[in-house]
């Protein structure tokens, strides 16, 4: 249900206006990357990109294209700001986040510009709430320099199979070891916990495997604590692409379908565990 036009008088002052009929289309995606308090928002005419980072080793990005929004107006080429993601999610769910069908929370997100708060207009069932969240100076997101030309191994899996594996992973293990190889074992997730080791093997001809392109055998270890937040994105997604490059950096890209069937992407970049490589 579109919001009333009460704020249209200020329209010309906003550098960014984004409207959604269903705020859940945004909040669900943001929950998948909400492992830290602060998020960097970058808006371009193509859409919205939200970045969350952890200890310079992990970066999560959520991409919501402009087409997902009912209205997406941007006056500059790049608008960037940083907000507290936890607060933003609380505001998006301010009406309690009920899942009664047919009852949707509408959202209008407005940003005047540098130094101004991010204004959210939320409406459900005729009740309107206005939230103003302070913004901060956007930090520069780390560039992991992960480009397609350096990718050595790439695998696209259906999320079903990985969801089960990730939910069963031995949490006493400090690392998750990912082995990708053109020969046996084609794609293997391994943990080394207190009680012993566990290996999850996915053959390249499995029906869960949509694409298998591995050029050389690579085994990399990643800290379990860093990869744990990605399970939220995995739970929402229907497909996941796992890529490693020559340096052992990991890229996980999740294809997420929102409530209206539109596609958004969430990606995670992770550094390999340096200590393990020294051993």
């Amino acid at each position, binding site marked *: 249900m579109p919001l009333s036009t009460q704020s249209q008088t200020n329209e010309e002052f906003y550098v960014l206006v984004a409207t959604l009929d269903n705020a859940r289309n945004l909040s669900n995606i943001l929950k998948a990357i909400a492992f830290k308090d602060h998020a960097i928002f970058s808006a371009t005419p193509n859409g919205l990109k939200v970045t969350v980072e952890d200890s310079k080793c992990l970066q999560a990005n959520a991409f919501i294209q402009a087409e997902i929004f009912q209205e997406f107006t941007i006056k500059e080429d790049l608008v960037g700001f940083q907000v507290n993601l936890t607060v933003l999610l609380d505001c998006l769910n301010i009406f309690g986040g009920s899942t009664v069908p047919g009852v949707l929370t509408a959202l209008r997100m407005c940003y005047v510009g540098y130094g101004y708060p991010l204004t959210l207009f939320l409406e459900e069932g005729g009740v309107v709430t206005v939230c103003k969240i302070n913004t901060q100076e956007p930090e520069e997101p780390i560039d992991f320099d992960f480009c397609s030309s350096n990718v050595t191994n790439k695998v696209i899996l259906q999320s079903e199979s990985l969801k089960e594996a990730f939910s069963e992973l031995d949490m006493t293990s400090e690392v998750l070891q990912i082995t990708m190889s053109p020969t046996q074992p084609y794609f293997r997730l391994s943990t080394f916990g207190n*009680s012993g080791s566990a290996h999850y093997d996915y053959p390249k001809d499995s029906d869960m495997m949509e694409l298998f392109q591995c050029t050389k055998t690579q085994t990399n270890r990643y800290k379990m604590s860093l990869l744990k937040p990605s399970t939220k994105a995995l739970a929402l997604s229907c497909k996941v692409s796992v890529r490693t490059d020559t340096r052992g950096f990991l890229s996980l890209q999740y294809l997420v379908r929102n409530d209206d069937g539109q596609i958004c992407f969430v990606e995670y970049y992770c550094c390999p565990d340096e200590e393990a490589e020294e051993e």
Partner: protein
Amino acid sequence: MVNTGALSRLPSPALPPHICSGCEFGPHKRVRKYDIGITSGNKQFYFPKYMTTAPFLEQHASLAAGKRRYLHSISSIYSTEQMRRQMKQHYLDVLHSCLQSGNCVKAFGRAVHALARLGDELWLDPLAKGLALRSVNSAHSAYSCFLFSPLFFHKYNLRSATEKSAEAIKCKLLMKSILPLFRLPSIERTVERFEISIEEDLVKMKFFCKHGIVKTHNLRFQESDALQAVFSSHLCPNVLKAPAKLLSDMVMHFPVSQEEITLSISAAKVSLRNYFERGNGHMKLMHTEMSLHPDEFHYFQVGVDSDITFCLKELRGLLTFAESHCLPVSVYFGAAGKPVCFSIEDMVLEATVVLATLMETESRAPSQHTATPLNTTTSRCEVEAPQDRSGVEQVASSQGSPILAPRLSLYPSQIDLPCGQGDPIRTHAPSPAPSLVCSLLFKALSQAEDAALDPKVLVGVSDEEDVMEEEPQSPPL
């Protein structure tokens, strides 16, 4: 020697096409080059060539084709080659390993869950008679064993006993590392095959799941002394065999928090009621009592009237398992103080739970608000005459048993019995005085099973050889 006269009277049986391995008789014949064709009337029959040289057929050249076919079908069932194949399956091989199909994984997983309710550690014991999974609780007052016979597995290979005579592997795993591998609702849907093997210091579990996914878990185990309980079930005076759902339906009425229940048996009925200590505000608790008529049991034997009190929590696992497999539950017990054994079995598995019971000299029963006090302080089993309880609402049994007036007996006033199940015995036989003792039949299995197995020695301490009473050796569980 075949009596051709008799055979000539036999009609040729109509054979289904698949009865002979390798040869097909029927509309879709698969004729191999070396088969011999024999024409009889309009039909042509094919036999493998070796059959023509079979001695018993040679001597009876006059046999008709149908009769030969019949004889061939019988002989292939009993062929020595097939016998050899079957024996090989059961023979001991070089590796410890067993393979199961996906359906069996469910039973295995349920067994692990049932054992998990008891203790924190799981003992895995590959034996010639099967793979035994055992568990004991921390107080050593409850023991459970699930034995899967080799028939349960598609393949069961054991390192031959002669190679490592006294050093059979006894491995102990932490329950928390094995339980998450068997998530019950999902495991039967996803796992197609399951392989478990025990090597030097690892238990390897391989789950072959749908879509070609293979999950391998290598668990380190601790070598430990074997865990085994010795329980002479054949010496128990009281034996019950209850249909699968009966006991689990009964225990359903007790709240999950109910720790202990009392099972009373007499010639007239069996009753279950909740157990609680005196003086703990017992009047404020809900008292539940259910009675069953002996007819509700498949087998009912009462040697001595008794009331036994044991921990219900540890039994629930087995009852759930029995219900899911529709297996009747056998109960073996004696007087209060002696352990009670619950067991289930079918062709491929046996499961037992042995629980210690409270030993007490005083009787207990829920008091009624209209009760008249009794003077007697003797144990309940000596009270014979049932008495009427007025003012107590009785609920008709859904099983159709007649409504029985429960016996009334009251608390003796003097002695306060301590709560809980007491400590496991370490030394000698308990004195019959008011001290509350749980006796238990455990004995760590030492390599020489020669000594007369004493029913009162406890698990875990293999060096203890307290020989108190001589009892005839019963088969270990």
